[in-house]
């Protein structure tokens, strides 16, 4: 009856599948087999059940769906014979995972089998339970497993021990039940039981502080003795691996001692001798021995201080590091990373060797070594290390350059003592691997350059030289283009020469050449080209002699298919042609970029993304998907929200300043663009001047930025003239000369003004199946009261019935809910439910609205409960 030894059909199927020449052919065979098995399943065929399951497992391994076989596993497990159970359990472990509800059905069979008289059946059940048990099963079956820890046959005891590990991982509360029986396993002689018992104790210590204390008191000496015995034991063929008796047991003993010794001086003392013995006596010419040494070093590093042992351990790592075997070197690097927190000096001694490992041909070793080098850098060695790394950058593999540049950049940023060194190193990196550099890096570089007023001339000249040889490195080109645009005349006049510099002669037309080459290079992307256009505009005023040539270049983009370029080309051309009187003012040098603001932004962007991912389940978008009703007010809110500015933060700030997103004039896309990026232009410009004042003066903010937008050309102006910040309040007049550049701007302006006093709708809550929008209105007389109209839309394909919306607010708010328009929500957003909420804010003007919501409904006759918190309310409600 056994399908495997007698039945040829499993074999036949495997043969047939292996004979297939194409994937389509294989699918055909599998489909036929699956159809036959399905038929057998529905006929409840018993005779071939295990053979069918075996086939299904094979099919499963090939990656085909086999869920229809899950119930067959359960039936086989429930049958009486060992062969059926054996294959049934195998199928259970293979075809199911712990999340499937079917699994619950097997609990009963497992319970019976754990009490079976045949020990092999008990073993099967333990094995299955250990591999796939869920938290519920763990609770139900823990007593059985606990009892089996004392079973007469050691092979069952060891299985029960491992099964217990799974149980306490699933339900840590059960740890205390297992502590005593686990401790008694440590007294056994059987290696399997010892190994699993140690493992169980280790996991118990992780799960419960009490267990750790208990084992520390009762078992430390015993474990040390076991390790002593095993380390000194004569040759034992049964457990021998390359001359060492049971390295697996060694390793587990050391690991358990590590946990016992950590943070406890007495326990650490107790194991010193044996650790020293293992560290000195273990053979290190085979992998097994090295595995033990590796574990031993880790234990020495983790237990309470003993300098003698630590020297020993670091020496072992030093030996590892010079080993020819890459595996050994890899683990050495790995361990040195941990050791660095314990003893930096000792690790520094191996710096040269580690640096060599950065250049290894093996990717894993390189990566480890690079991380280690990164940790080793300090003020005293940063210069030689950076030099080494940058030199290596020239010859390193393409795929490694990304990692390497990122690390070099952060080292340079972190440890730069003087700006000239920073700029030099960054230029080197950009010239070597500019294409691998992240945007933040070159943005930061520009901020630094902008702040180093005595180095402007030097930088722009170095960049000009660098770009001649490394013109294919996009981010280098961008920085160069920006600097030439800003400091072009210094390039030509050689102002601010430093002693170390070699003089170069660059003519005005050479400088324009550089930009022309950059803009025409076919690999240049939109950002680079847009920056080139801005730089050209600036140069047109700086180099009057080249003005006509620059105009010709700019005009070429009049017909560009890329809107951004076309628009710039037309606008800039018009500035050059018609507005001589204001041009020089317009293209004045950028004000010095504020480093503090930029760094703050950059730091802020990190928690920003983190909170975005945390909130992903609730998916409360923060201005990202807001409707275009009144974006302006909205946008300003972003700055005052508790949540940091959403995704396009740090980087955009600078991009905007660079004029990359400088597209306020297009009235058609104005609203949408304003949301995406234009927003930040406004915000960021505002924040440069007055970052701290933002939250306190929200109304004036709104006012002034409406004005801003009115003179949206004002952004242009402000970018170039430092005086514009103070001119902001008087902007309607100040901006007017440029207004005529921007035809069709007026309608946009009008709508925005109209929308001024109202509030934007928000997406208050969104899940995979449901979307909730809030519309706000206020009665003129009462600023504290807000009426919110909630609109629920069903995104799924199921009808929602018994729909109930509940909301809760903090004490300073009062909430009144009107009845909803319906309690049934049709599928696929066909209709929606609306419900009015009236909120009174007693702290109006001081605190914003917040709300916690809960939505309950029945979908597919299943109860669904969704909850969330809304804190993206517009300010001022």
């Amino acid at each position, binding site marked *: 009856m056994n399908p495997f030894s007698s039945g040829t059909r499993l074999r036949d199927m495997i043969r047939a599948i292996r004979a297939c020449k194409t994937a389509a052919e294989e699918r055909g065979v599998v489909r036929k087999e699956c159809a036959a098995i399905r038929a057998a399943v529905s006929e409840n065929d018993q005779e071939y059940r295990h053979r069918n399951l075996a086939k299904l497992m094979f099919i499963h391994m090939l*990656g085909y769906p086999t869920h229809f076989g899950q119930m067959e596993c359960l039936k086989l497990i429930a049958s009486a014979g*060992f062969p059926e159970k054996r294959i049934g359990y195998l199928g259970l472990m293979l075809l199911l995972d712990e*999340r499937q509800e079917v699994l619950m059905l097997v609990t009963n069979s497992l319970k019976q089998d754990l009490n079976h008289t045949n020990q092999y059946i008990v073993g099967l059940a333990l094995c299955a339970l250990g*591999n796939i048990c869920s938290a519920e099963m763990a609770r139900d079956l823990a007593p059985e497993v606990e009892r089996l820890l004392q079973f007469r046959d050691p092979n069952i005891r060891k299985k029960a021990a491992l099964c217990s590990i799974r149980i306490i991982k699933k339900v840590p509360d059960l740890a205390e039940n297992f502590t005593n029986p686990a401790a008694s396993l440590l007294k056994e002689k059987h*290696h399997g039981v010892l190994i699993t018992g140690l493992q169980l104790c280790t996991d118990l210590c992780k799960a419960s502080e009490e267990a750790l204390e208990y084992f520390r008191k009762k078992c430390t000496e015993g474990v040390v003795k076991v390790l002593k015995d095993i380390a000194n034991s004569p040759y034992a063929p049964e457990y021998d691996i390359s001359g060492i008796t049971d390295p697996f047991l060694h390793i587990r003993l050391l690991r358990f001692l590590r946990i016992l010794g950590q943070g406890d001086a007495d326990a650490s003392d107790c194991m010193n001798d044996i650790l020293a013995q293992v560290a000195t006596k273990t053979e290190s010419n085979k992998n097994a021995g090295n595995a033990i040494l590796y574990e031993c070093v880790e234990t020495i590093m983790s237990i309470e201080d003993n300098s003698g042992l630590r020297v020993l351990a670091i020496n072992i790592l030093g030996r590892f590091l010079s080993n020819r075997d*890459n595996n050994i070197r890899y683990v050495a690097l790995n361990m040195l990373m941990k050791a660095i927190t314990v003893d930096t000096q000792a690790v520094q001694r191996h710096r040269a060797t580690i640096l060599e490992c950065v250049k290894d041909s093996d990717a894993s070793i390189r990566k480890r070594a690079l991380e280690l080098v990164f940790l080793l850098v300090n003020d005293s060695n940063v210069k030689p290390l950076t030099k080494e790394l940058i030199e290596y950058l020239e010859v390193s593999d393409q795929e490694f350059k990304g990692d390497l540049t990122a690390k070099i950049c952060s080292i340079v940023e972190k440890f730069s003592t003087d700006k000239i060194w920073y700029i030099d190193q960054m230029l080197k990196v950009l010239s070597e691997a500019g294409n691998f550099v992240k945007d933040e890096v070159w943005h930061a570089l520009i901020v630094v350059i902008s702040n180093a007023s005595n180095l402007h001339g030097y930088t722009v000249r170095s960049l000009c030289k660098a770009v001649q040889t490394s013109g294919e490195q996009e981010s280098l080109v961008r920085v160069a283009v920006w600097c030439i645009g800003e400091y072009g005349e210094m390039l030509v006049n050689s102002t601010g020469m430093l002693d170390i510099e070699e003089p170069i002669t660059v003519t005005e037309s050479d400088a324009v050449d550089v930009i022309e080459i950059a803009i025409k290079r076919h690999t240049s992307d939109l950002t680079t080209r847009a920056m080139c256009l801005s730089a050209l505009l600036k140069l047109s005023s700086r180099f009057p002699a080249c003005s006509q040539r620059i105009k010709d270049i700019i005009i070429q983009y009049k017909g560009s298919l890329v809107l951004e370029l076309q628009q710039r080309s037309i606008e800039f051309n018009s500035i050059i042609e018609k507005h001589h009187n204001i041009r020089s003012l317009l293209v004045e040098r950028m004000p010095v970029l504020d480093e503090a603001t930029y760094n703050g932004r950059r730091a802020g962007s990190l928690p920003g993304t983190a909170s975005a991912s945390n909130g992903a389940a609730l998916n409360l978008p923060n201005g990202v998907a807001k409707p275009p009703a009144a974006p302006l007010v909205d946008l300003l809110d972003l700055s005052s929200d508790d949540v940091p500015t959403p995704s396009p933060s740090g980087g955009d700030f600078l991009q905007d300043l660079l004029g990359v997103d400088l597209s306020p004039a297009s009235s058609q896309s104005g609203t949408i663009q304003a949301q995406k990026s234009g927003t930040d232009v406004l915000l960021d410009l505002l924040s440069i001047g007055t970052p701290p004042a933002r939250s306190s003066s929200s109304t004036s903010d709104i006012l002034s930025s409406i004005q801003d937008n009115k003179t949206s050309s004002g952004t242009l102006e402000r970018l170039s003239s430092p005086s514009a910040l103070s001119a902001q309040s008087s902007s309607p007049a100040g901006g007017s000369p440029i207004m005529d550049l921007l035809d069709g701007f007026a309608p946009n302006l009008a709508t925005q003004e109209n929308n001024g006093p109202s509030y934007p709708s928000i997406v208050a809550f969104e899940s995979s199946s449901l979307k909730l929008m809030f519309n706000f209105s206020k009665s003129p007389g009462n600023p504290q009261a807000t009426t919110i109209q909630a609109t629920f839309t069903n995104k799924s394909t199921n009808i929602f019935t018994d729909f109930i919306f509940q909301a809760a607010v903090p004490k300073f708010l009062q909430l009144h809910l009107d009845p909803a328009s319906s309690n049934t929500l049709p599928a696929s957003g066909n209709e929606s439910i609306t419900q009015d909420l009236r909120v009174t804010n007693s702290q109006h003007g001081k605190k914003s609205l917040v709300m916690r919501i809960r939505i309950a409904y029945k979908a597919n006759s299943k109860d669904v409960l969704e909850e969330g918190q809304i804190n993206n309310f517009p300010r001022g409600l």
Partner: protein
Amino acid sequence: IHFVLLISRQGKVRLTKWYSPYTQKERTKIMVMNAQLAQVIRELSGLILARGPKLCNFVEWRDLKVVYRRYASLYFCMCISQDDNELEILEVIHYYVEILDRYFGSVCELDLIFNFHKAYYILDELLIAGELQESSKKTVARLIAAQDSLIETAKEQSGSISNMIVQATK
């Protein structure tokens, strides 16, 4: 150990065992990833074996590590946490291979294809919940043999029963 995979040189999966919960989708992704890995390793080792020392057997993946070892046409991969002992896992892999070898009598890929279930049974005697349960090859062999003989007995019995039925119906 989070999972064990056996992958052939051609990138075909020969055995999968999951000790941490992964959805089917993740499983497929991991398998594909590992299959590609096997390809890359093959290409690289072909290139590099000729000169210099060989590559190390650890590949970092997400926040875990895959330890692999090649035996003839098969890659044995085990995935472990960052702070597990990589060298030990190499020993575990070798230990598993030795037991397979002893059981099948110089094991080859075909043995593992046609008797994949036996490879699983042996693995189950070695690892539970991703932890090692036995360090003696002899014990594992004995346990497997005992269970195989249980199957044989069951087969004989049912064989004799069906024989009796056949004879009775004659």
